């Protein structure tokens, strides 16, 4: 099966505030507040239009010196952020 080449970017209109243990994000369109823990913040930051899911998992693995790939965790995190419209897929080039 071909590798998923989808990349993501952060949605527009998010108001982000840093707190000691993560980020608080206010989304004006839905009038919802989200809290991202440091790992979710890292995934969110990697949603800059340049990284695929597999690349994100690789970067997290290196950052946290993990022995196993966190592919499932990245998948779950991206799914939640997509469901909450915090990120959107980039149009394929």
């Amino acid at each position: 099966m071909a590798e998923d080449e989808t990349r993501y970017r952060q949605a527009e209109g998010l108001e982000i505030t840093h707190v000691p243990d993560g980020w608080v994000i206010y989304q004006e369109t839905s009038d919802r507040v989200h809290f991202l823990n440091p790992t979710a913040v890292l995934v969110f930051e990697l949603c800059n239009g340049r990284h695929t899911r597999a690349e994100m998992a690789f970067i997290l693995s290196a950052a946290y010196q993990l022995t196993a790939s966190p592919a499932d965790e990245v998948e779950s995190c991206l799914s939640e952020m997509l469901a909450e419209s915090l990120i959107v897929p980039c149009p394929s080039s």
Partner: protein
Amino acid sequence: MPVILIRTLTREFRIHVDAQDAAGVLAYIETRPQICGPALRSIDLVVRRVGGFYHLALPDGIVAEGTASHLLDAIHQATFKSFVEEVPGAPLIHGASIRIDGAPILLIGATGTGKTTLALRLVERGHVVEGDEHVAVRASDLVARPRTLRVKADSSRFVPTLATEILAAPSIPEWNGSLIYSVSPAIGGNPWQIAPILAPTLVFLEPNHGGHTVAKPVSVERAFGCLMAACLMPNGKAEAAARLRRVAREAQAWEMSLGDLEGAEKHLNRIASSAMHLH
């Protein structure tokens, strides 16, 4: 001429009333705590009888005319607006601010959870109550909104030593005709003082009518969620939510299923003692 005093955090509204009957109604919103901080700025307002109604020119060019009850609503709105202006960007937690042996505790819960009755019980036992409606989360501390306790007649039976004073306090009728009383936290003999709150313990109340009171610690995540659900948010919600996150993260937090008041008091004493050891 009777004068009704209503203090907010930086202002003292002095409402001069030229009619005794209107003064009796407006006494309900009299609010006279000692406010820690700079001297309050006085704002003099005059209620005049005009025909069968009353007239009051409020700050910002607002004019209220009508019955004494109508003026009471207008003054209430104006003083609440004043308080909100004094705490810019602050989310308002729906809760009571109390101090047990000096340890600040917020009792947080929706209307009907027993917050006011518990606050009264604590007043009766000599503890400090600053307010039981809103607590503003400022950038570096918290502060209670100056407001009297609003007590239903039925609640007075839970605090027998205060019942006579409660039932003599200024009152207004509710929609169903029963009276609700405006009771100063000074009723128990302690001065009513409002001071900045640092590192409070959070206690989220749930009603357990007729049962025993039970308390259990809760996680930061749960505390943050409960705070978000119990807040009035200002504009600038991300910053406001970040303030709540900091409070949740730095506080000890508990959930209290509020049944018997004696049990609640015991739990709160234990919680306060635990907080004092931590600090």
